């Protein structure tokens, strides 16, 4: 017996000892990660890393909420969030930009770090294939892409904050983290150089599976945009004369005309690529110009595209998807959210088809405000009575035609011998989810593919970060500033011709005004207005209010209901402007952590 026991005991001890001696088993490896060695020796993983930088560039549709930048300027009103604090300049260094959902200091710098890591590593990678695709070696293409992306990120920072620290290294844990803000001029110069580096490496066309990556044209367009912004009033006029660090906000010396010339040249460089042209630049007599324009934004690809981001159509899953614009912006009478709706301010800026301004004080125009407008009005805005699309099957009894109804109908009810009011299906008093009805009386049409059933599917339209029309406008703006009115009109009128609008003939400041309006309507909701009102220093005009319309089909004395409604503008939401809004505040946290930083004026 003793023997058995001692044998058991010995076996047990031996077992335990064996187990405990082999300590290797403690050193497990994470199974869902890639080590730096894996990553930087594998071109496919490096490619995925670059894709990650693209992915972290601010999505203008912002992860499902559909919160376009248009809602932070006089383009769209958000009835759910309203962004009151932002649109009244109540932002402070403490309140985290008051619900601003787009790119900001930390998010952008996080992505810049990824770019910097790439540059630290890329030259030590030995495994790249040297086979050229689109006439460029993969390593050069990726390097060009990252130069472009870093330029884009710094462009975003400089547009929001002015001069920022230019950080070109990937920090280690034990580095000194404090850094001074570089001057605005230095930032612009850096961005411009990055664009040049990118353009030198990138192919003219990214074909096949690379379509959607940055191209030479994208890099040059970014340069054009950056230099145009830099030449603008905000960075060249004394908006904050009392501020001690004016070189952070703009240029304090040098020749502004030269800056306009650079901006002009940069736009010209894109044009000279001969790679892009306006989509249906010369509409055929049988074309619907409005349809042409609408198609630009729902097509997969046009000759006008310079840099786009694709989205796929997928069924909604009760989780935020990448592009829910058709759900979020669509009318409640289609079971959609009607959350952000075009503001009367931008709607009114669409000219009459004869090129004159629309005005509510002109009774003839106000009588039927949606008649004879710029064709782009019809491709950008949904308004009372317009045919949008067939209603969902359960709502066809309410409206068989699929025409937008935001109005109120006064009808005679014979049974009660009295007048009753019937509310449009897409109004805030209608029968369908009326709390989702917009306040402005308009809904968004631009970007929305009518064939998408927004209730169930995401909107698959690509987002155009850059398209050729902007380049032409950038060029025209620089020309006007340089006094080259004829040249400017030439290019402006190319855009107007495509849009089916008569030529502009003005000169001087009248031309500048026409230009600004042209840019506003051509690029409406495309993230430009937000920056334009700032760099033009016209924000006080843009932050007055968000307007809407009341639409009333009155009852006639004979108890019939008028076929043509009375449409009258009203104020939905007040806005207010303070000059501090020209630049974003640097958060107090950030200032505390980096004592070398200087706050922007008036915060």
């Amino acid at each position, binding site marked *: 017996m003793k023997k058995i026991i001692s044998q058991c005991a010995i076996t047990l001890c031996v077992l335990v000892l064996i187990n405990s001696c082999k300590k290797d088993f403690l050193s497990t490896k994470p199974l869902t990660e890639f080590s730096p060695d894996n990553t930087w020796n594998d071109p496919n993983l490096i490619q995925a890393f670059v894709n990650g930088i693209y992915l972290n560039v601010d999505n203008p549709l912002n992860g499902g909420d559909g919160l376009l930048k248009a809602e932070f300027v006089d383009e769209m009103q958000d009835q759910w969030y309203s962004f009151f604090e932002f649109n009244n300049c109540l932002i402070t260094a403490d309140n985290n930009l008051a619900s601003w959902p787009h790119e900001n200091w930390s998010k952008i710098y996080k992505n810049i770090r990824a770019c910097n890591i790439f540059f630290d590593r890329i030259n030590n990678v030995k495994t790249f294939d040297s086979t050229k695709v689109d006439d460029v070696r993969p390593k050069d293409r990726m390097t060009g892409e990252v130069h472009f992306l870093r330029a884009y990120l710094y462009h975003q920072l400089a547009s929001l904050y002015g001069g920022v620290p230019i950080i070109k290294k990937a920090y280690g844990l034990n580095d000194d983290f404090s850094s001074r803000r570089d001057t605005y001029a230095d930032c612009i110069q850096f961005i411009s150089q990055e664009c040049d580096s990118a353009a030198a490496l990138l192919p003219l066309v990214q074909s096949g599976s690379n379509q959607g990556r940055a191209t030479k044209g994208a890099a040059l367009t970014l340069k054009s945009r950056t230099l145009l912004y830099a030449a603008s009033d905000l960075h060249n006029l004394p908006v904050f004369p009392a501020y001690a660090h004016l070189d952070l906000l703009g240029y304090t010396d040098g020749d502004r005309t030269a800056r306009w010339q650079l901006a002009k040249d940069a736009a010209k460089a894109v044009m000279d690529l001969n790679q892009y042209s306006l989509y249906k630049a010369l509409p055929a007599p049988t074309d619907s110009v409005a349809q042409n324009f609408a198609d630009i934004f729902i097509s997969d690809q046009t000759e006008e595209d310079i840099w786009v981001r694709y989205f796929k159509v997928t069924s909604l899953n009760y989780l935020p998807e990448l592009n829910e614009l058709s759900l979020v912006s669509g009318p409640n009478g289609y079971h959609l959210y009607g959350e952000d709706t075009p503001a009367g301010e931008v709607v009114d800026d669409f000219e009459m088809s004869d090129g004159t301004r629309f005005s509510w004080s002109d009774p003839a125009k106000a009588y039927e405000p949606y008649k004879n407008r710029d064709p782009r009005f019809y491709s950008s805005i949904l308004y009372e009575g317009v045919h949008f699309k067939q209603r969902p099957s359960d709502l066809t009894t309410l409206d068989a035609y699929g025409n937008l109804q935001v109005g109120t109908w006064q009808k005679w009810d014979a049974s009660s011998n009295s007048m009753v009011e019937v509310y449009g299906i897409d109004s805030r008093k209608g029968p369908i989810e009326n709390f989702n009805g917009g306040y402005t009386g308009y809904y968004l049409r631009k970007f929305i593919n009518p064939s998408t059933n927004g209730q169930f599917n995401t909107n698959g339209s690509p987002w155009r970060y850059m398209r050729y029309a902007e380049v032409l406008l950038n060029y025209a703006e620089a020309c006007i500033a340089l006094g080259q009115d004829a040249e400017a009109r030439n290019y402006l009128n190319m855009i107007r011709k495509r849009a089916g609008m008569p030529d502009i003939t003005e000169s001087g400041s009248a031309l500048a005004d026409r230009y600004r309006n042209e840019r506003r309507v051509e690029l409406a909701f495309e993230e430009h207005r937000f920056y334009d009102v700032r760099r033009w220093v016209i924000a006080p005009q843009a932050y007055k209010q968000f307007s809407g319309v009341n639409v009333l089909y009155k009852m006639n004395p004979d108890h019939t209901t008028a076929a043509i409604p009375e449409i009258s503008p009203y104020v939905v939401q007040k806005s207010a402007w303070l000059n501090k809004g020209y630049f974003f505040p640097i958060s107090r946290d950030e200032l*505390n952590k980096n004592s070398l930083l200087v706050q922007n004026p008036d915060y």
Partner: protein
Amino acid sequence: MKFILESSTAEHSCRKKKHCCLFLAILWLLMCSSSASAQQPVNGKITSADTVLSAVTISLKGSAVATQTDINGKFSINVAPSDVLVVSFIGFISQEVPVRGRRNIDIQLISEAESLSQVVVVGYGTAKKATLTGSVVAVKGADLVKSPAMNLSNSLAGRVAGVSAVTRSGEPGNDGSTLRIRGSNTLNDNTPLVVVDGIAGRELERIDPSDIESVTILKDASAAIYGARAANGVIMVTTKRGTSGKPALNLSYNQGFVKPTVIPKMANAATYAQMVNEIKVYRNKDIVYTPDDMQKYKDGSDPWGHPNTDWFSEVYKPVSQQRDAHVSLRGGTEAIRYLVSAGYRYQDAIYRNSATNYSQANFRANLDAKVSNNIKLSIDIAGRQENRNYPTLSSGNIYSSTMRGKPNIAAKWPNGFPGPDIERGANPVVMVTDATGYDKDIRYVLESNARLDINIPWVKGLSISGNASIDKYVDNHKLWQTPWYLYYWDGQTYDADKIPQLTKSLRGYATPQLQQDFNNGNRTTLNGLINYSTSIRGVHNIKALAGVEKITGDSMNFYAARKNFISAAADQLFAGGDGTDQTNGGSASVNARLDYFGRFNYNFKEKYLAEFVFRYDGSYIFPAGKKQFGFFPGISLGWVMSEEDFWKRNVTLINNLKIRGSWGQTGNDRINPYQYLQGYAYAGNGTNSSTYIFNRTEENKSINEIRISNPEVTWEVANQSNIGLDGQMVHGKIFFSADYFYNLRTNILAYRNASVPGSTGLTLPRQNIGKVINRGFEFQAGINNKIGEFTCTFSVNGGFQKNKIKFWDEVPGAPVYQQSTGHPINAPLYYEANGIFSDQAAVDKYPHWANARPGDIIFKDVNNDGKIDGLDQVRSDKTDLPTFMGGISLDVQYKNFYASILIQGASGARRKQFTFSGESGNFLQDDANGRWTVDNTTAIKPRTWNFAEEYWMKQYDINNTYFLRNNDYARLKNAEVGYNFPASFNNRIGIRGLRIYINGLNLATVTKLKNYDPESNSDNPYPSNKVYNVGFNLTF
């Protein structure tokens, strides 16, 4: 021969029944065999402490002969001199007493409660309570089964001082409590370690309470034997094992009736319509509802056009059910003892036509074999299947939709068809059913353990043992989402019969879609222990334990999803669309631990006590080499003052008094692994947001840097100090215990972000920089008494603890009143609500937000700078975890009746209250009553608001103290009244015991919090349950 006589009477009564006769014949044979040898009566008396026990069963081992004690505790039974008496009584430890020819045998029984207080389970062994020096408390399984809660974690509340169990949700299958031992101690994970039958890391919640012998909780440094996993305390569950003696077959069944503890009271249609009109007026718009509409909402004269819907009563049924059945067989011989049990439980949800339910089937087999005098082998196998069924929309979504439900919209039309949604198909009447598809989750758990104990015969007191355990977890999850239909009425179209014409509307998804997940996890635990105990001259008592343990685990998961099913008829992956809308993926992880540990106990005459425990822990979480291992010691000392002669001479009131103290360091390794490695990983987790699309439709993987490495990463360390006192008075009739503790948690991993500017773009690793202090006290006291046939146990316990952050990397420069250092963990920042602007003059007079108007909440200008901005927020001192929790329990027994009550309460927490009110959803009645209106300008409640349009209502959260609510409470957590059938009855029908009872959970609550259960903390909880339960327990 009383039993035999009674049996033969029974025999007469059922003579006609053949099977009955057969049974009795066998019984007779058995009895004959046992009375074969020379028999003589033996007499005796059964007592416990100073009292006699009646109705105690005395049987002969290996035979059916039995009797019971009379009212004076006396018995008489015929035995052979070699027989062994088995004495058993509910609530007491069974004893076997050899007769050895004696004629008179008096037996003292030890109550299970007492026995528990004599020996407690501690890490890798047991300890005598009398010589225990750590802060260790225990609960009996018998107490836990008094709660009809379906989740074991809910049964611990109020039972043990210093342990808080807060039930956040009552959703079947998802109703676990947040367990905390001595509150929160770290900025990271505060979950205690659960050890079941010696195996660390097993799950607590779904263990069948009927299988539990005891639950022990290690609160202080005595837990250091669990080293790096013990800093948050250790909960040790011990399951029942076999006993030698006749097999006992036990059946129990419970039928429960469940109601929500509280349902929010929402505004009715007329009030809601009035409030919507007010919103319109505040926005300068025309009002929507006319006085005529209001009248119709009030009088219900127009159910189609002007319904008045109480959404909660449309969605919830008055009462739902739960059931629980358990059968066990327990018994054994000298050589083999066994406990085999099986259980089944089912829990329905409170929804009408509910798709939600939970069911569980479990079994357990605990076998102990005495292979020889020195070798014991134990084999345990336990398994269960957990079925969770849910609709495809979450309980939070359902609750929020019910709460938002506008009272002037029909939940169901008068013809029974479901009414419209709020938006996107959200009609909770339909959401709770299987009309939207199903969400089915089946989990299998298999836990096994083999243990070998060997006494080394040639060294007295030396034994070794080894454990090998394999646990396996498999989870199958299937989410099948289908379109559903709702019905609209446009308010004007009627059919030929003048009945409103409804239109059918497709909601949710255009086509069905399916997602399936499969998860598989394994854990292997191997350990070896050496135990040695000796006593030198009976005064120096020494016990030593050393051990080594190796734990490895792995898990993997795998999923696939398809969309665009052309038909809902086949809910299988193959039938889904083949286009781009299909995904699949999977991942895996491994873990490993290697630990050496030990314990050394010394006492002098059980008067001066000392214990030292340690663990030297190695973990996969840390880099190989020195940092991979950590040493965690614990030391404790005790002095049993009452053993001193001077005490014995002078103090008569207090019979037993022990002072003890402990200090130790334990670790917390519940942190993310691999922080010493730099790494890159795919963005997201295979979701849409993790891919970037090139070439129109090609989805491309993207990777991000997920962390930079922190080569210095190490364990979080809990420095735990405890002093305590245990005592007994009046011969054990009064007992008390008190503890004071001071925990300093250091090396807490926290992001150093606060001093690293955003411009670096760094995703920082966490570093061991945080410090949290947590201190508090606990007490437990009670009385055991027996007067005649009336037995009573009364006890009170309570625990108070308060934590504060001593250091972490807080942004410098913030005003003192906003800093979190010095405040409890997770304390938020709020604007201070300071009343309501009564009129425009009041608005003009005080600093306010730019758009403030009469009826708005006044924010206090905290820094007196004449404006309200971010600097006026103040760090709160309250969080959603209570700082005090306590319980009062009372057990009384009179003859065969007994009753048991547990009152439990908590205080010191605050709860947020947030609703989606406005045009998009209904208001709480409480927010409607007494609100500010133009006619009620002196109101203390704000005006009607419209979701997030007001500065004092933020989207998805609150920003000011007005919406904080006091949720202190006291509640009748459990109550049970039961009846033990007398032996005379039991004997007549041939059973050993029968108990019937009714009990309940959360039966009554006293709290200031309206509309929500005080234990819930979410805005959209599944309501907590109030359970009324009837049951019986039958032993053969």
